[in-house]
Structure formats: structure tokens, C-alpha cells
């Protein structure tokens, strides 16, 4: 197992290299003149050239790409075009906010989603099930940012219970986390329901019932654990999507996280900022996928054998 994890971590290196190449190429072809953006419309031709030389923009595509890779090796993400601040430092100070909001959102999403799904599955085709499913139908079709705005309108503006935006106290986090969490719980609930329904039909559930086990224990000990793999996949996907969500929600609530930073980078064609953020996101994504896979093996012992044999097979294929 340790070998497998190590292999997965090493595998992240080519992925990061690939991601940098992909985003670097995209940003290279983005129209716009970063020097003009940084120095303003009145800057002279000479000043612009000097600025370009300073940031290495007078060189060709491959040289710039290579230089960027070299920087990354030393954990040097470069400095922002717009304000000259070190990107690594900026990301370090912003990432915790994004993660904090993300984790709180996750907790709420799971706490709402899984019980809803279980409830719907155990009451299949009753009004409870229909109600739960109609609710999740609605939430999956709803743009997250819109739900945030509606919540703000109601709880902050109309009732005045929570602050509209900001990040100083715990009260600031209630609306963003609850809004995003409840919104995302819909996907988890739908998956929980369908995998529970799948599992409930299995023979070993009948076996447990034939043993005289209580319904409640059957649902939670036998069914839920076996139906967990696809649910975990949805949760993993949700964690990966979190970054996209944060791009929007952080703007609405003025939370100083990665999302806002990256978004501004894209708007201002601040290439090093976008690249730096993408690298961090890609690493984050790979780690999430790895963690999800490890959790799989804890939940379902069969996955362990499957994974180890897959990693062996990959090695064999590589040899051919």
C-alpha cells in the first residue's frame, strides 16, 4: 500500500508539468499587453521594453516556459505583474481561507446530503422520497451563487441576522458555508439514494435480515458502508469543484481567498498569478484524488487488492 501511495505521489510530477504547459500555452495566446496593463496607457515605448525585459517577456515561448519550470523547482512562483508582490506568499496567506470555507461547506453538505439520501431510499416511492427528490432536483438545477445572493437578501438584508460580507468573525461564514453546503448536498443526497437502493436489493442485505438484524442496523451497518464508494466519488468531485465555486462565492462575500486572487489574475492577464494558482489547484486536485482512493480502500477492502493489482499492471504495461 505504501508503495502504491508513493507511486501516486510521483505520478503527480508529470501531471503538474503537463498542467503548467497547458495553462502557460493558454495564457501565452491570451490577447493583451501585460506591460501596458501594469504601467498604464501613458507609459513610453522604452519603459515598456524595459518592463518586458525585466519580466523576461522579450524571450521566446520555450525559453519562458523553461524558465518558469526552473523557478517552480525552487518553489519560486515569481511575482505579480500588477503589484510586484511575491505570488507564493500571497497564495500561502490566502489558501487557508479557501480551505476553511471549503471544509465547513463539505461538513454541511455531507451532514445534510447523506441522511437525506438514506431517508429517501428507505422510504422509496412514498411522499417522503418524492419530497426529498424534488428538493434535490431543485438544488442541483440552481446556480450556487444565486442561492448565496438569495440567502444574503433574506437573512442579512431583510432579517439582519448575519453580516452581508467579510471574513472577520464566525458569523461571516454562516451564510457562505450554509448556502454552498446545502446547495452541494443535493448531489450527495441523490447519489446516496441511488446507491442505497442498489445495495438494498443485494443478497447480503437479505442475509442480514434473515439473521434477525434490526432494520436500523441493516441500513447503517450493512447498506450505507457498501454504498459508500460512489458517494465518496461524488464527495471527491465536490471537493475538486470547490475551487471553481470559491471563484464566485469569495467575490460575493469578499473573502480574501485563492478564488478572488486567481480571478483577478485572469481578468488582468497577470500570467504568473494565474499559473501559480493553477499549479496549487492541480496539486490540491491530485491530493484530493489520492485521498479519495485511500479512503476507498478503508471503506471497501476489495478496492485495496484491485488498486495494488492495477498499479502492478501499469508497471507491466510500461515495460512493454
Amino acid at each position: 500500500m505504501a508503495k502504491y501511495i508513493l507511486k501516486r505521489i510521483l505520478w503527480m510530477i508529470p501531471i503538474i508539468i503537463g498542467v503548467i504547459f497547458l495553462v502557460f500555452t493558454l495564457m501565452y495566446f491570451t490577447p493583451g499587453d501585460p506591460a501596458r496593463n501594469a504601467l498604464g496607457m501613458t507609459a513610453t515605448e522604452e519603459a515598456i521594453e524595459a518592463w518586458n525585459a525585466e519580466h523576461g517577456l522579450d524571450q521566446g515561448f520555450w525559453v519562458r516556459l523553461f524558465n518558469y519550470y526552473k523557478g517552480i523547482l525552487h518553489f519560486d512562483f515569481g511575482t505579480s505583474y500588477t503589484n510586484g508582490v511575491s505570488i507564493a506568499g500571497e497564495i500561502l496567506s490566502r489558501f487557508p481561507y479557501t480551505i476553511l470555507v471549503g471544509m465547513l461547506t463539505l461538513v454541511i453538505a455531507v451532514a445534510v446530503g447523506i441522511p437525506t439520501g438514506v431517508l429517501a431510499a428507505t422510504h422509496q416511492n412514498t411522499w417522503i422520497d418524492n419530497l426529498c427528490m424534488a428538493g434535490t432536483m431543485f438544488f442541483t438545477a440552481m446556480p450556487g451563487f444565486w442561492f448565496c445572493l438569495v440567502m444574503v437578501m433574506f437573512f442579512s438584508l431583510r432579517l439582519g441576522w448575519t453580516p452581508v460580507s467579510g471574513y472577520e468573525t464566525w458569523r461571516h461564514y454562516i451564510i457562505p458555508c450554509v448556502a454552498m453546503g446545502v446547495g452541494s448536498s443535493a448531489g450527495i443526497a441523490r447519489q446516496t439514494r441511488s446507491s442505497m437502493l442498489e445495495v438494498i436489493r443485494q443478497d447480503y442485505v437479505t442475509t442480514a435480515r434473515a439473521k434477525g438484524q434490526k432494520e436500523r442496523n441493516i441500513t447503517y451497518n450493512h447498506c450505507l458502508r457498501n454504498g459508500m464508494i460512489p458517494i465518496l466519488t461524488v464527495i471527491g468531485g465536490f471537493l475538486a469543484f470547490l475551487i471553481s465555486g470559491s471563484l464566485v462565492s469569495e467575490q460575493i462575500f469578499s473573502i480574501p481567498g485563492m478564488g478572488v486572487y486567481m480571478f483577478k489574475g485572469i481578468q488582468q492577464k497577470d500570467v504568473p498569478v494565474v499559473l501559480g494558482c493553477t499549479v496549487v489547484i492541480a496539486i490540491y486536485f491530485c491530493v484530493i484524488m489520492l485521498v479519495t482512493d485511500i479512503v476507498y480502500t478503508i471503506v471497501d477492502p476489495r478496492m485495496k487488492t484491485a488498486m495494488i493489482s492495477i498499479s502492478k499492471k501499469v508497471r507491466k504495461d510500461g515495460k512493454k
Partner: protein
Amino acid sequence: MSEKAFLQIKDLSVQYTSDHQTIHAVNGTSLRLERGETLGLVGETGAGKTTIAKTILRILPDKAAKVAGGEIWFDGQELLGLKEEEMRKIRGNRISMIFQDPMTALNPTMVVGYQIQEAILLHNSCTREEAKTRAGDMLEKVGIPRERYDDYPHQFSGGMKQRVVIAMALACNPELLLADEPTTALDVTIQAQVLEMMSGLKKEFQTAMVMITHDLGIVAEVCDKVAVCYAGVIVESGTAEEIFDHPAHPYTVGLFGSLPDMTGTRNRLTPINGMMPDPTELPSGCYFAGRCPHATAACRSVRPEMKHLGGTHDCRCIVKGGEQ
């Protein structure tokens, strides 16, 4: 005969409803079984055998299946009228069940030892440690070393899994065992191992058993009494000798005719023509009339009653019943 047997099923009918269709799975089945006896319940796919067993334990899917009528008496108690909580105390304790496919009957995310222990803990007031020891004992009884307690089902072969399922079913020393095609999914040599082990344990535990199977060979080997099931009704019943030596019902005769003879040489089989009737639209007369070589006009209109042929031999047929 009016006295209640150890297990007695009277006129049991079970229906499944799905998408505006009603599937008549069991249509007036009656069975009796005494303590320590083994009854072979024989029939083909869709004959309603598994449904009967699941109805005895009351583990049919709640919404889809409905018991339309009948009674099930077990040791003086009527099971269909029991409260769920009382029934739960019987399941796995006094009546337990072995399922057909050992690949799917075990929970893949639980160690096998715990799955046996679970049954013991539910029905006995003992500590976890005692239950664990007893579960280990059961494993050894079915020929699996105690050390494999903490292994997961996927680490066992098919035959071993079925041994675990049997250990689980026998863990609380039940008075009645419902075995639903326990060896169908296994290879012949493994089947022989499992059957031998089962008959050994049955003797040791003095358990009554309902052996559900489509294999007449297995019935001949392990059963004292036989009931032949067709389209949800028992068409013929009696002791194994009565059925195997003097099959009376045309369906039973047809079943024997479909079996390649192991002693003779290569010659044509005499199979039953056609197929079992659609369980959503059962014919009005005898369910077998459409495939029966002896069917008369009366067979197609009148539903035959069970006729007594002497001994314990009963047969549900207008034409063939009295001929013996």
C-alpha cells in the same frame, strides 16, 4: 392429520406487484414438515420455491410482495400474524436460511467472523468475547481455520464462502433450516464436499431442513420427503421413495424424462414441451395443462384438487391421480 405439524403451511398465496402487473408467484401452497426431517422442494426457475422460503421468514420486499392468503404454523405459532419484533427473534435463531449464491450472500465490507458473530450476539445474551469464540468454533465446524476470522469474503473461494454462509445459518442452532439451492453455484466436486458437510451438521444439530433445489440428484441424496412445485402450487408430494419410484403427476414424470440417464447410452430425451405459464396471466384450469400430454378438456377448465394416492403420496391431477 389435522394436528399441527412442526412446520405447516396452509394455502399460502403470494403476489408481486410491479408496474400495474400482478405476478402470481405462489398460488395456494400447502406443506408439512416434522422435527428433524428434510423436505426437498423441487421445481424450475419461477416455480415460487424461493418465495415460499422467504415468506416463512417474512423477508420478502415490503412494498412489492404481498401475502394474499394462507397461514404458516411453526411449532404452534402462526408466523404471518406475529409482530415484527417477535418475528425478528425467530429469524436467524429458530429458523435460518442459506442463500443460493455465496458470492453475493456475504457482506463484502465486513470480516466473515463478525458476520457470524452478529447472529450470535443478536439472539444470545453473551459478551462480545464469548460470541467471538463461538463464531470461531462455528468456522472450525465448517472446516475453516479459526485464524481466518478476520478475513474478508473476497479472500475466500466460492466453496469456502458457502461454508461461511452455512456457519452463519447454524450459529444459533436453529430448529429449522431453509436451504435455497445451496450448491447450485458450486462445482461438482465442491458441491460434494458441501453436501457431505451439511448432512453431517444436520445430524449433529438435529435440524429440520427444507432443501430447495432443481436438481433431482441432490433430492435423492439428502431428502426424506419431496414436494414438487410448479407455477406456485405443489403438484405432487410424498416420501422420496414414493416420488422417485412411482412419480404420478405428468410434470414430475416429465422432469425425470428431461434428465439424461447416467446409466444408459445415448438416446433421445423425452422433455416437456413448451414453457411454464406466464405468472401474470395464469390459465383457468390446471397450470400444467398447456404442456401436458394427457390433458383433457376438463383439465383446461377445472383447477385440480390434491388427491391422496396412499401412504403420504398426494398428487394434484385429474387424469393421472387415481391410476396407480
